[in-house]
């Protein structure tokens, strides 16, 4: 049941229609940022209002929603957003990646491979990949129009010249469909390869910056690099202390005040599933 006094999905129908039109154009021009009117939400900008507006415009009564924050289902932001949609849309929620039809995420892509029929909604703080290099929106718009991304290549080159490698471990810029430079939102560079030719539809919402963009399924998403300095995603060199995974992205957790630390999977659902399987096998 939807909470009384709210339209289904919280947003009014006019707003949803406006966002829906923006979403369709975003899918038609992969990686291009489409402006939209971000409405006031019952939480402040920076807490995922863009992602929530996209989810609210897409979600239906039959959907099953999963929300993650840095890979975890049980953090404040994830729990609040899940509860919000359970209240204003009456939808089922889940923590299982495989069971969800819509996954709203902040800063991670689940380890479990996504499939057709799923939609991944990213919360994006800054949609413009060039903003640190060129603060004027009028200029970045023109650079996107001309596919003039030399500035970003210079930035990567300078990183290599100074540090010997590209010094970006998250929010690593990608080229979508061979045309548009896109911010993958601050996911770790480790997750970038998962975006490439993903069977699921990827939608991005930036509430404060009022931009929506999208990557259709099976679309080429390439992390920028050079032939002699190929893109290399970084991962902590350790197995997960809880499930033993050597493939998943790890969080470093400080466990005491004597320098003790452990590495655990950032994706809680992936880690819990592996632990259960391991217990069952024993």
């Amino acid at each position, binding site marked *: 049941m939807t909470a009384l006094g709210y339209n289904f*999905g919280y947003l009014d129908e006019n707003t949803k*229609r406006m966002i829906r039109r923006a979403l369709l154009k975003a*899918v038609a021009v992969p990686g*291009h940022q*489409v402006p939209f009117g971000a409405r006031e939400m019952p939480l402040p900008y920076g807490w995922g209002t863009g992602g929530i507006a996209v989810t609210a415009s897409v979600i*239906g*009564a039959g959907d099953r929603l999963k929300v993650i924050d840095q890979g975890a289902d049980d953090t404040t932001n994830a729990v609040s957003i899940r509860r919000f949609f359970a209240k204003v849309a009456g939808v089922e929620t889940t923590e299982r990646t495989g069971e969800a039809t819509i996954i709203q995420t902040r800063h991670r892509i689940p380890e479990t491979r996504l499939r057709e029929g799923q939609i991944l909604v990213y919360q994006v703080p800054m949609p413009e990949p060039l903003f640190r290099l060129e603060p004027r929106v009028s200029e970045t718009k023109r650079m996107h129009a001309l596919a003039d991304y030399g500035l970003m290549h210079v930035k990567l080159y300078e990183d290599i010249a100074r540090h010997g490698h590209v010094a970006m471990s998250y929010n690593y810029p990608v080229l979508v469909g061979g045309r548009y430079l896109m911010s993958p939102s601050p996911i770790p560079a480790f997750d970038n390869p998962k975006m490439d030719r993903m069977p699921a539809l990827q939608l991005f919402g930036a509430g404060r910056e009022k931009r929506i963009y999208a990557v259709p*399924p*099976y679309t080429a998403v390439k992390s920028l690099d050079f032939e002699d300095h190929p893109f290399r995603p970084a991962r902590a060199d350790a197995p997960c202390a809880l499930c033993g995974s050597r493939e998943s992205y790890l969080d470093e957790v400080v466990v005491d005040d004597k320098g003790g630390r452990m590495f655990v999977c950032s994706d809680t659902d992936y880690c819990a599933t592996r632990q259960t399987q391991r217990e069952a096998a024993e």
Partner: protein
Amino acid sequence: MSGLTPGFADPVPDAQAWFRALLEAMARPGRIQRVAALPQAPAPLAPAAAAVLLTLADAETPVWMDAGPGAEEWLRFHAGCPLVAEPGAAGFLLAAGAMPELAALDAGTEEEPHRSATLILQVAGLETGRGWRLTGPGIGTEHRLSVEGLPGGFLAAWAANGRRFPRGIDLVLCAGDRLAALPRTTRIEGAG
């Protein structure tokens, strides 16, 4: 006014269901979508085409259509959208008869390619599994789509539409209660 037929029976969930079908259609070009909830649109509007307009059109979207005064009155009442006489001025176009020339429609600008028109084209038939070979974003290897009732010269016009990327027109094909979409990025090979 007395002859006016209803739009969606339950506007909020019906519009959501049709939007998801459209989103899926646009994200996976050439796959056919259908939704059970149909509006009672007056002829010659196809139910799917009418549903797409009810889902996306409102006071902010100028619409062009060639479906006659009955359909115009119906849409104006249910969607409240302005109707324009010039195809080039429209954000959404519904063609029940002859297809408007793609080159004459608003294709957006290089900086703002999203400000382009969406053409909803009613066709005689849609079928997957044979016909055109579609490739491009949204398609794993290839999708097959067969469309009945397109004008001659469509493929040349579509290829020209694709060449001006990121500008371009996006197409929604409707046959009865079924729809498929061709975003500007989709390349078509072979005979329909």
